[in-house]
């Protein structure tokens, strides 16, 4: 059913894409400008309207304080986490941020949380898909870096909700890529997916067997990617300009953005050419030009790309495999176009990597495959099933500030663990639990996920209550907690304070706020719905013409119907849903008698011993009146 169409979305640091399964193959849905990639850039124009994608890019240079990029780096993080990031990225945080609060970023006069900014990108993708299908899209699979923690995943899910999408599944990016690869190759074996994108790095090792995609180990760094290379080149250029030309551009946001664009272009060209020249006009009429050789570039980025080696070795070790046991290494992410990255992968895994997939699109394509599996599958995806893992260990803080790990990393999800707690003093009614994520021994070195308060424990002597707490990581990699006091059988009440994240109420509020920016969406949606309703009634009319009832109509009646049909066809593609609706209503009125006659003849035929199906009403007896007005919520 069209309204049930589930799309696959790659919500990237630099670019985002939406894809779906067309027959046997996943395809990317282009935007209005014909481009498959929607840059993950959000800007506020002069009229305070939100602009997303290619159209927003010019604001990055013209009015940098009114544009945001790479917001994925801030998803699910607190002020303390992003200090270093702020030195490199022109994010302007709100002035009144409290410690522990979800970040808010300034965009012109307004402030938005990272999930809200991501929601603008998602809404653009949703719009692109709706335009493409001519039907509303409300369900999606969204990809996240495999190494994203609970808070980052939750923030992504919140972004989907704010954008009006039901997020049916979060899929890890390298795993999604493996689905697209596996759909193509249909081979059993062990593969490694090396995914170096704009802002994140993941390595995943999978076992492919008869349609099962079992992740054995995953590792990564959620703050390592092409952005780091850009920042390095930018710093060098800024130092250069300060040293040679005695101009300090650091406080000139526009010039910095222009220079950033120039170094990114140079980086991209260096994958094809052995020398490029960065050449840019500076404010004050001066000119900056610098030649970079590929050798020079490779020397500079070596320390950055070397940071991918540790996670790869750890993943191999966790999988209990040697490099030569990997059958194929698949490259994903724009940064794997860099020849030096390919050399590094080749040395690491002792084989030439598989480079046939489009590294920018394969994750979105894989998300579309997963969307197809979730919607019940098709011939192409029959038997395909993804068994993914949790990238980080889940732990509980115990006495002495130590982490007691209860679900180890690389456990297949869903996974669960049960812990028992009791009270320390007589009549104690609350027990506090601190949940952590990470591999380190000490709680302070792990990521704080949430603090839970078990409340309403029935009064008992110390040590008597036996509270069973169940921790469950769902198929999205998100934690769920439930608790019960076993002696009294009472369901303990849990109060969750997510360490970094939005509460349900906050998300609800943001969904309401988002309508301010969604006027255009709403209008588009009404048009799309009206058009699809017009198609329904026109198809029903076609059927009516072939039914015996048609012959019973008078000449005037058939003429009138033909006129109304023509009128609807004429306005069907108009940009005003009201005009379309009026034409639909008119045609509905005009065909009322035809509809009645069709029902009657169907009933008469049925009485003669035929079935309703033979009568060709099109629907069973409980189906709505074939010409009746469609109902909408």
């Amino acid at each position, binding site marked *: 059913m069209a309204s049930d169409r589930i799309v696959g979305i790659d919500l990237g640091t630099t670019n985002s894409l939406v894809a779906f399964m067309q027959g046997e193959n996943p395809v990317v849905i282009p935007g209005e400008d014909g481009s498959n990639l929607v840059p993950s850039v959000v800007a506020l124009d002069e009229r305070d309207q939100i602009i997303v994608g290619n159209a927003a890019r010019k604001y990055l240079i013209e009015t940098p304080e009114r544009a945001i990029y790479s917001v994925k780096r801030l998803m699910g993080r607190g002020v303390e986490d992003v200090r270093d990031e702020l030195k490199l990225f022109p994010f302007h945080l709100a002035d009144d941020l409290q410690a522990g609060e979800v970040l808010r970023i300034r965009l012109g006069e307004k402030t938005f949380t990272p999930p809200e900014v991501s929601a603008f990108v998602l809404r653009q993708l949703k719009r692109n898909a709706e335009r493409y299908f001519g039907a509303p899209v409300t369900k999606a699979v969204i990809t996240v870096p495999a190494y994203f923690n609970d808070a980052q995943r939750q923030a992504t899910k919140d972004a989907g909700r704010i954008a009006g999408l039901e997020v049916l599944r979060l899929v890890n990016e390298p795993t999604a890529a493996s689905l697209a690869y596996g759909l193509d190759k249909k081979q059993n074996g062990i593969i490694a997916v090396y995914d170096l994108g704009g802002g994140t790095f993941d390595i995943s090792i999978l076992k492919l067997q*008869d349609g099962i995609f079992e992740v054995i180990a995953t590792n990564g760094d959620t703050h390592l990617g092409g952005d780091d290379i850009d920042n390095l080149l930018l710093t060098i250029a800024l130092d250069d300009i300060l040293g040679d030309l005695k101009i300090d551009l650091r406080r000139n946001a526009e010039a910095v953005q222009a220079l950033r664009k120039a170094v990114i272009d140079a980086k991209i060209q260096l994958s094809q050419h052995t020398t490029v020249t960065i050449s840019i006009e500076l404010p004050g009429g001066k000119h900056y030009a610098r030649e970079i050789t590929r050798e020079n570039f490779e020397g500079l980025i070596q320390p950055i790309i070397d940071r991918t080696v540790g996670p790869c070795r750890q993943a191999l070790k966790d999988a209990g495999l040697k490099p030569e046991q990997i059958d194929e290494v698949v490259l994903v992410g724009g940064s794997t176009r860099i020849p030096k990255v390919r050399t590094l992968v080749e040395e690491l895994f002792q084989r030439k990597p598989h480079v046939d997939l489009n590294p920018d699109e394969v994750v979105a394509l894989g998300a579309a495959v997963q969307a197809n599996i979730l*919607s019940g599958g098709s011939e192409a995806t029959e038997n395909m099933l993804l068994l993914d893992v949790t990238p980080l260990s889940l732990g509980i803080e115990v*006495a002495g500030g*130590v982490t007691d790990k209860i679900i180890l990393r690389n456990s*297949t*999800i*869903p996974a*669960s*663990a049960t812990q028992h707690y009791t009270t320390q003093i007589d009549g104690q009614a609350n027990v506090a639990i601190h949940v952590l994520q990470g591999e380190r021994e000490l709680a302070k070195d792990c990521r704080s996920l949430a603090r839970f308060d078990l409340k309403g424990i029935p009064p008992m002597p110390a040590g008597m209550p036996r509270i069973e707490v169940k921790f469950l990581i*769902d198929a999205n990699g998100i934690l769920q907690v439930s608790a019960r006091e076993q002696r009294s059988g009472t369901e303990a009440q849990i109060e969750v304070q997510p360490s970094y994240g939005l509460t349900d109420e906050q998300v609800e509020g943001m969904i309401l706020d988002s309508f301010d920016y969604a006027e255009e969406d709403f209008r588009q949606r009404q048009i799309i719905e009206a058009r699809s309703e017009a198609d329904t009634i026109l198809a029903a009319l076609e059927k009516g013409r072939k039914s015996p009832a048609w012959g019973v109509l008078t000449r005037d009646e058939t003429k009138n119907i033909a006129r109304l049909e023509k009128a609807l066809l004429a306005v069907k593609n108009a940009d005003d849903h009201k005009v379309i609706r009026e034409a639909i209503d008119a045609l509905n009125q005009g065909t009322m008698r035809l509809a009645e006659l069709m029902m009657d003849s169907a009933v008469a035929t049925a009485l003669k011993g035929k079935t309703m199906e033979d009568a060709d009403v099109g629907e069973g007896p409980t189906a709505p009146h074939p010409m009746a007005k469609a109902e909408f919520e």
Partner: protein
Amino acid sequence: MRAAQFCHSCGKVQPPAPADYFTFFGLPRKLHLKEAALQREFYELSRKLHPDLSVRADAREQAWILEQSSRLNDAYRTLKDPIQRTQYLLGLEGVQLEEQSKSATEEARTAGTVKKQVVPPALLEEVFELNLQLEEARLAKKMGEPDPELVRELEQQKKKWEAQFEESLEELKGYWHEWDKLIDHDAAPEKRAAVRDKMVDLLNRRNYIRNLVRDVNEVLEG
């Protein structure tokens, strides 16, 4: 017989009933296990229980599916690993290996002392020698005069203990054999208890050796 995960007539996923991991897979409580067959069974059950296959089910059914599929994964993870499988079975037999050590750790922490580890008697002499060498090496390092000969000796020690660690798995498999035979013959509880205790001792020794290797590594690398 596998635990009843599905309805016999309609095939729908059922609310989870309490069952141990062996029962979940329809296996006897034996320790030798064909890993390939277990994996096949795991894949087959995943194709029925994984949440991806029922995103349209109602909330109640989805909750059951989530519970059943997490149990499937927990069971597979535990049973496929030889050590975890043994520990789990010993747990079912009433031995609280992990909890014992956990409560000991907690106790030591609240008392502010270092957790005392009982040296397995068989290792007493060798461990005594190793601890002397470790102490000496730490001291030498503190003085900034690392002793190359001592380092070489410690590397020897490391190799030796790592080998012992590997061998302990083979030894354990020997006990599995004894255990499984007793199960096949429905042997008396005292006989089972004897093998059980041998396995507990072995696992304790194995843990102890693992910690020794870790200590040696710390001195060699740190």
